[in-house]
């Protein structure tokens, strides 16, 4: 269970948000909403442990994520709005390296199978710089099919994706939630994902 209590974020001398409370349990989805610049990305970066909240606490099963250290990174998968896809590597190399960094080593065969599932058949050995924005996004999202973590934090996962890819992501997320995963995501698109419970968090 992930719990945030009284989270506050200050940028310069401006308070982006304060007094944010939430808790999500296995199988639940939390959508973070709010206009541009309301601090959605800052919140997600705090939740995955990249940034530290100015005040308040984030707890995973009642222990502070700061005290969990690198163990917390075995629990969470974060996909930022920068997709983390290297232009000078092929789709396969990108996927193999990002998964290896997350602690999952796969061979080329497995990598190309996963990429095909993401609808990148025939593009596996192309350098990422010749792929379109949407295709790069698919390469980044392919990681989710391999992740064995309990919590996914996705920052605008649907940007640049076409309708069929959005359907695919929806299916992946629903399957993951049904298996007891937890998802926190931000999106400007309306997407209806089936979950045991869907929380909405509004930042203004």
């Amino acid at each position: 269970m992930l719990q945030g209590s009284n989270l506050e974020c200050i940028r310069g001398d401006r308070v982006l948000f304060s007094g944010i409370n939430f808790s999500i349990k296995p199988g639940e989805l939390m959508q973070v909403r709010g206009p541009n610049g309301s601090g959605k990305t800052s919140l997600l970066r705090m939740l995955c442990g990249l940034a530290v909240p100015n005040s308040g606490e984030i707890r995973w099963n009642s222990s502070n994520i700061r005290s969990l250290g690198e163990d917390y990174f075995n629990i969470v998968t974060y996909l930022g709005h920068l997709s983390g896809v290297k232009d000078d590597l092929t789709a396969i190399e990108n996927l193999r390296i990002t998964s290896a960094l997350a602690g999952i080593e796969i061979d080329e065969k497995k990598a190309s199978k996963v990429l095909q599932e993401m609808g990148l058949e025939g593009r596996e050995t192309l350098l990422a710089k010749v792929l379109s924005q949407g295709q790069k996004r698919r390469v980044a999202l392919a990681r989710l099919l391999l992740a064995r973590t309990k919590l996914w934090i996705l920052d605008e996962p649907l940007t640049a994706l076409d309708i069929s890819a959005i359907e695919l992501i929806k299916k992946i997320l629903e399957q993951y939630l049904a298996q007891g995963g937890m998802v926190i995501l931000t999106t400007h698109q309306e997407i209806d994902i089936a979950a045991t419970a869907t929380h909405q968090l509004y930042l203004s």
Partner: protein
Amino acid sequence: MPPQRRINYTFLNMLIWIIRRDLLLAMRRQADVLTTLFFFIIVVSLFPLGVGPEMNTLRIMAPGVVWVAALLASMLSLGRIFSTDYLDGTLEQILLSPTSLSLLVLGKMFSHWLVTGVPLVLMAPVLGIQYDLPANALFVLTLSLLLGTPILSLIGAIGAALTLGLRGGGVLVSLLVLPLYIPVLIFGAGAVEASIAGLGFEAHFSLLGAFLLVSLVFAPWTTAASLRISVG
């Protein structure tokens, strides 16, 4: 104990992954690598032309010139250690890796040295000939660079991590890192001077070795902490 062994194995695997990745990227973008090497070659080769064919003067200048050029060449490439990863978001993934960040950073430092340091070491004896260095001085020069350039990569990475994402980071990184480079310069060049003068150079090498060991222990850890601050 089997579990212990497994952990070590994955640690080593991770190190190999990150080094392979950086070398692959360096191969795909050779211009970046060659810039450093060409800078070194050009600076070192220009001095004999500018000073003139005065063998005695050249021999005295050689260690200092080669070492200063190596230092500047290494500094030229510091910005690239983390900045590209920072810009495309891979650095976030590295920071969120369940493996020890210090280890990954060590891997990045090592590949930086392989890509920028080792070519300098290999070119140094060839360039030293222009300064009429005797064979044993060329040998000592190469050896001193072999010991010294990893220190430059290790210390430089701390500066690169601290200035990540800042405007004018290039100037700042030189200001941060240069004071720490100076001992390496003094003892690196000093070893070669001593060998030209026919004195023992072992003391210089011992000190360089000590610098290397100390930075090998502290630099990855410091860099990891700096990265967390810069990105967070």
